[in-house]
């Protein structure tokens, strides 16, 4: 019988970012697939070698505009380790706060896009309306909506004052209420379940074989969240990963929905227990040696390899982003699915191509 071959992306209304899949369909079933990326590859790792190491904080923030804070933080953590800098506890707690609101905004963004992928426009609008409050909060505390530039080597660039903390607490509470109203639709609506349950199955074994990370891995029943390692102030705040076992798109949505609630809780706890003191320490000297840093980004495990040589310039900066690790599992999940499920499954990994290609 005949088959249909057509490109899916790079420019495609359902894809927020350029990703190309050359898909072969039989009727509407996906029977063949080959991926292509490279539309966002800039060569950022190389550029980082040319810049001075403090400048790189701003560069790595732009690896990805959605989780830019996490990139900056991981980079800073690496440099701090190389230079033996101990950052003040207040900065550790603030890093948790910023990480968690970044995660919150990223997950809300994803939930909206996911809803859009299966054609639920209203739900998309609801999630993004809720997300705007978080962006306001970011603007209030960091001065920018998406790229915060709050993180600096040695701590946090701008400390929060009491009023800001109050506002933040209020916004977080409000968002929690809002999500209580919206989440049931994502989790219980019949039409949503029809489109997500059982779509893009990834078993625990396959998740390991294909190297999935983050919510993908956790939705397949592996309880791995790097926040368990207790970097920043996570050890003090207490943390248990969110795990689901079904391994389908619905489970991934469920993991992220539960993580939004967890993030709100963690962010509020961080603010409540925020120690007094300085938010940053002064930095002197140049990094020397090599280190690997891992952080749990909204999309999963982020790894930075930094190698300095005692000069202002780094010898090598290597960034392995979570989407880079999650893309291979698409090759496992897509074949055999319906054409209409392609966007749902592609989005279920929460692709961040900009991260992937750097």
């Amino acid at each position, binding site marked *: 019988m005949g088959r249909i071959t057509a490109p899916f992306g790079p420019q495609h209304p359902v894809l927020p970012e350029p990703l190309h899949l050359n898909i072969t369909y039989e009727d509407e079933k996906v029977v063949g697939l080959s991926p292509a990326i490279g539309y966002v590859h800039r060569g950022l790792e190389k550029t980082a070698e040319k810049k001075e190491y403090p400048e790189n904080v701003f560069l790595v923030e732009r690896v990805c505009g959605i989780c830019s804070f996490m990139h900056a933080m991981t980079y800073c953590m690496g440099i701090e380790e190389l230079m033996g800098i101990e950052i003040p506890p207040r900065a550790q707690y603030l890093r948790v706060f910023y990480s968690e609101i970044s995660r919150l905004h990223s997950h809300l963004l994803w939930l909206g896009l996911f809803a859009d992928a299966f054609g639920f426009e209203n739900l998309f609008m609801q999630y993004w309306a809720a997300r705007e409050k978080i962006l306001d909060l970011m603007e209030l505390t960091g001065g920018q909506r998406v790229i915060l530039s709050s993180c600096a080597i040695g701590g946090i660039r701008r400390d929060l004052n009491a009023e800001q903390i109050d506002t933040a607490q209020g916004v977080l509470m409000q968002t929690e209420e809002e999500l209580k109203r919206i989440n049931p639709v994502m989790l219980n609506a019949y*039409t949503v379940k029809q489109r997500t349950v059982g779509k893009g199955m990834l078993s625990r074994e396959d998740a390991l074989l294909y190297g999935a990370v983050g919510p993908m891995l956790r939705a397949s029943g592996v309880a791995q969240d790097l926040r368990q390692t207790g970097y920043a102030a996570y050890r003090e705040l207490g943390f248990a990963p969110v795990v689901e076992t079904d391994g389908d798109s619905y489970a991934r949505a469920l993991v992220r929905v539960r993580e939004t609630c967890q993030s709100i809780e963690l962010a509020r706890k961080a603010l409540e227990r925020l120690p007094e003191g300085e938010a940053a320490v002064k930095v002197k000297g140049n990094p020397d040696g090599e280190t690997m840093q891992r952080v749990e980004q909204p999309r999963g495990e982020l790894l930075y390899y930094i190698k300095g040589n005692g000069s202002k310039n780094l010898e090598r900066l290597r960034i392995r982003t979570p989407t880079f690790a999650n893309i291979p599992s698409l090759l496992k999940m897509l074949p055999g699915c319906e054409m209409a499920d392609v966007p749902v499954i592609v989005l279920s990994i929460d692709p961040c191509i900009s991260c992937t290609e750097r």
Partner: protein
Amino acid sequence: MVKALMVVLLVVIMAPLLGGLLTGIDRVLTARMQGRVGPPVLQPFYDVLKLLGKEALAANRRQVAWALGYLVLIIASLALFCLGGDLLIIVFTMAFAAGSFVLGGFSVRSPYSHIGSQRELLQMLAYEPVLILLALGVYLQTGSFMVKDLFHQSQPLLASMPLVFIALLIVLTIKIRKSPFDLATSHHGHQELVKGITTEYSGPYLALIEVTHWYELVLLLGLAAMFWTHPLGAGILLALAAFFIEMVIDNICARLTWNWMIKFTWTGGIILCLINLGVIWVLRAGGV
């Protein structure tokens, strides 16, 4: 004859105005349901006027001819409807119109418009039986397939055919391209199909299709209004209520797949019709 021509003329002029306005209201109300302000009510007219002024792009003459066929045949079915014609013929003419739209999509060697056409065909497969069963129901109830004979009925059709009306609502969802059945042309953006059949139409040709959708909307709401002919005002209210229900459905549903659509209409929709027709048939047999 002259009267009939007048009616046709009136339909040709008034229907798009009405249809465009309804589409505008739809867009505003949908925006409100999503917590937005939404566009001006006259937005659809701006859109179409703008499209008329754009550069014409097309693959070949066939593509344009079928789009035009879609428009003309929908107008023809609407005119037949307003003249009180035979429901079956109206349904068949609508089928030709939809077929013409499908062929327009097929006329370009483009994957997205091709798949859109295949999906539109499946949509036809889904709603066509319900529409014909609706006509049969009208016949069983009134002894005639003619729309004009409905006006001789004292009792509204809704009273005897409530289930068929519900089935018609399903058809309406498919035909006016609302979630969960917005499958073939992606009325709302962000779909795997890009814009489905309309992907390869642009400028004035797209305007043609937009206007056709308006005519079609009026025709479909006319079918809904048919369920309450005395007084006609009630029928119009019924149609508007149906339209509003569609908007709500659109806003509380994810888009589903074609497999689901076929299963749903061929079981749910058709069974609703069958039960309803069965009851009418038994009652009639018993009554006589």
